[in-house]
């Protein structure tokens, strides 16, 4: 009995399919190879052209064009992160038109270098980063960079305090994703509410945090408080806090997002640390604790926030600070 015609067609298709698949695969591979060699050629031409051009520009200007160069050796000194942040803000505000930042960091075993890269990310722009594993690695790279670093290090050592320039305020350009995550976090809790960020000093007199925060929430209805410290720095158990006390590190927020929270909150009270600086630079009403128990970084004065830009009066922020830290904690 002969097969119906469509079954012949199916048999034929079965025979032809593997051949067609092989031809197709071969064509795809050939196309991929041609494309990748074209990329090789284009890449070499592009690299040579831009590479020589850039070398010429550096030669003419004696510095990288349209670039702010910042050099820092990470160390374990108290306030090193704050000094870096403040110097960075001053430099960026002084040269606000530059499109690129070249940041050279010498890493240290004392603390994570990634904290510093996150701080640098708060200023936006194209960040060309160079991390040296140690000082020896830096020496191998050459004298120009090493001399810049030693100059930078000398500046850091000799200054007790770094005066933040007036122009530095408003210079932050945090990454969108972190900034949006911070804002949405606040909105998800209470879109109309008032949030005050807090960062406890890690040095100096230890406070009984749990009872202090509980009392603060009780005495200030209408406010929510965001504890920015991670639990690396804070001692003691912080379980069973009232719902008005928020702990973003418990929600898995990284350091960059917590910096953005400092800049997004309605007010800031606490240490003159990187969170305090972020709030200051974002023009948030802030009350920084006195320098006696803190790395002295900026010369802060109450009332430096833009009054019309924000909805929280200065005296209310002062009152919150006094409420939590007591009048004696002020510098």
């Amino acid at each position: 009995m002969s097969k119906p015609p469509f079954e012949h067609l199916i048999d034929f298709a079965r025979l032809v399919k593997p051949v067609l698949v092989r031809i197709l695969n071969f064509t795809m591979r050939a196309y991929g190879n041609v494309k990748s060699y074209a990329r090789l050629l284009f890449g070499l031409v592009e690299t040579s052209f831009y590479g020589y051009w850039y070398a010429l520009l550096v030669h003419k200007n004696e510095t990288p064009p349209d670039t702010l160069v910042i050099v820092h050796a990470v160390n374990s000194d108290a306030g090193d992160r704050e000094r870096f942040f403040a110097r960075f803000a001053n430099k960026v505000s002084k040269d606000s038109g530059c499109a690129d930042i070249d940041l050279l960091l010498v890493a240290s075993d004392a603390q994570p270098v990634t904290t510093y890269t996150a701080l640098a990310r708060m200023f936006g722009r194209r960040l060309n980063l160079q991390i040296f594993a140690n000082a020896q690695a830096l020496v191998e790279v050459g004298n120009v960079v090493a001399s810049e670093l030693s100059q930078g290090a000398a500046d850091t050592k000799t200054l007790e305090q770094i005066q933040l320039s007036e122009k530095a305020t408003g210079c932050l350009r945090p990454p969108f994703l972190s900034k949006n995550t911070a804002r949405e976090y606040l909105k998800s809790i209470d879109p109309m509410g008032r949030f005050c960020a807090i960062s406890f000093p890690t040095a100096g007199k230890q406070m009984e945090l749990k009872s202090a925060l509980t009392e603060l929430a009780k005495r200030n209805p209408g406010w929510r408080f965001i504890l920015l410290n991670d639990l690396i720095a804070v001692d003691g158990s912080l379980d069973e806090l009232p719902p008005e006390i928020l702990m973003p590190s418990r929600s898995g927020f990284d350091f960059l997002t917590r910096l953005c929270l400092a800049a997004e909150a309605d007010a800031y009270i606490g240490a003159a640390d990187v969170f305090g600086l972020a709030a200051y630079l974002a023009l948030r009403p802030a009350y920084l604790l006195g320098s006696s128990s803190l790395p002295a970084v900026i010369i802060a004065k109450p009332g430096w926030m833009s009054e019309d830009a924000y909805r929280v009066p200065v005296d209310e922020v002062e009152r919150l600070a006094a409420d939590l830290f007591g009048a004696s904690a002020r510098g």
Partner: protein
Amino acid sequence: MYPALATEIDLSRKCVLGIMDFRYAPYALGDTFTWLTNLQVVAHSRGGMPIEIVLVTLPEKPASPMQRHINSYSYVQILENLLPAFLTCPSLRNIRVFENRKKLSHRLLGAVLARTASWPSLTAHFRGNLDYYTHTKINAFYAEYKTLPRLRAPFGFHSETEIFRTKYLAGRIPIIINIRQRALTNDPQALLRDSAADAWYKFLTTARSRWPSAFFVIAGGFNEWERRFAALPNVIIPRMFGFGLGHELTLLFKGTPFFGSSSGFSAAATFSNTPYTITNFEHRAAKFVGMPVGTERYPFALEHQWLSWKPETEQVLLDLFDRLWEATDDNRKDTKVR
């Protein structure tokens, strides 16, 4: 010759270059460790020269077509979160992150003119042809030299990790676990590789009575665990306390045994000296790592380093963990309750 270019050429002669160009390479933890080990193999083949890592994240094309969800507004956070992984390279001299095309070209031109050894090779880089996940080169190196350059704890995280140990792990024996749960993330991918959360939950519940001194440290993305895991008394999640990838890697590379599914952290364990058992090893991956399905160890594995190809069930996990627990410290045998 312009002095700036002469400097780059001079620097290129003194190092081996690792180029991770995210225009064609993925932002992926596991692939980063494989890439780093390949890079170390190249450096060792060149007499142990220091390594310079070049990361390319140009805002105009920050990611490959494989990761279309990463764009010029979101890559910064993803790179920042991945950065500690690159600090695990022992022969590292420096890392450079380029966001400016001209500066990148200048660096690469120096390397081309100096004919610097690199991973991938400069030709492969320009062709956009990176072997970022196979063990071909690694296995060949091990076959020839009977050793493999291992990764180490990232620098800078030691003192903070010790704080974590002191505050939260005192008196307990930590075990790092990683339960792959990409289905819970904003970027679900390759869900067939995901772990069975129920099996892990049951395992951890049983482990509480069977190994009372064991304390399980869940490592990995904050969104990759179900809430019920956080409530288990024998489990701690460092990312709930402000710790991150760098601290987790420090714990792992400093010898805390690893027990978890085949994913980014398992790749870190693979190239470490740490005892581990990798569960749920993907059969499809056998050809990439150059082993037949069912092989119990990588060719370059150390004594207490195992693979499991079986699907995860409570019993499978209990048996595998029992072997790891006993193997990693014989003195602990008396702490096990049968």
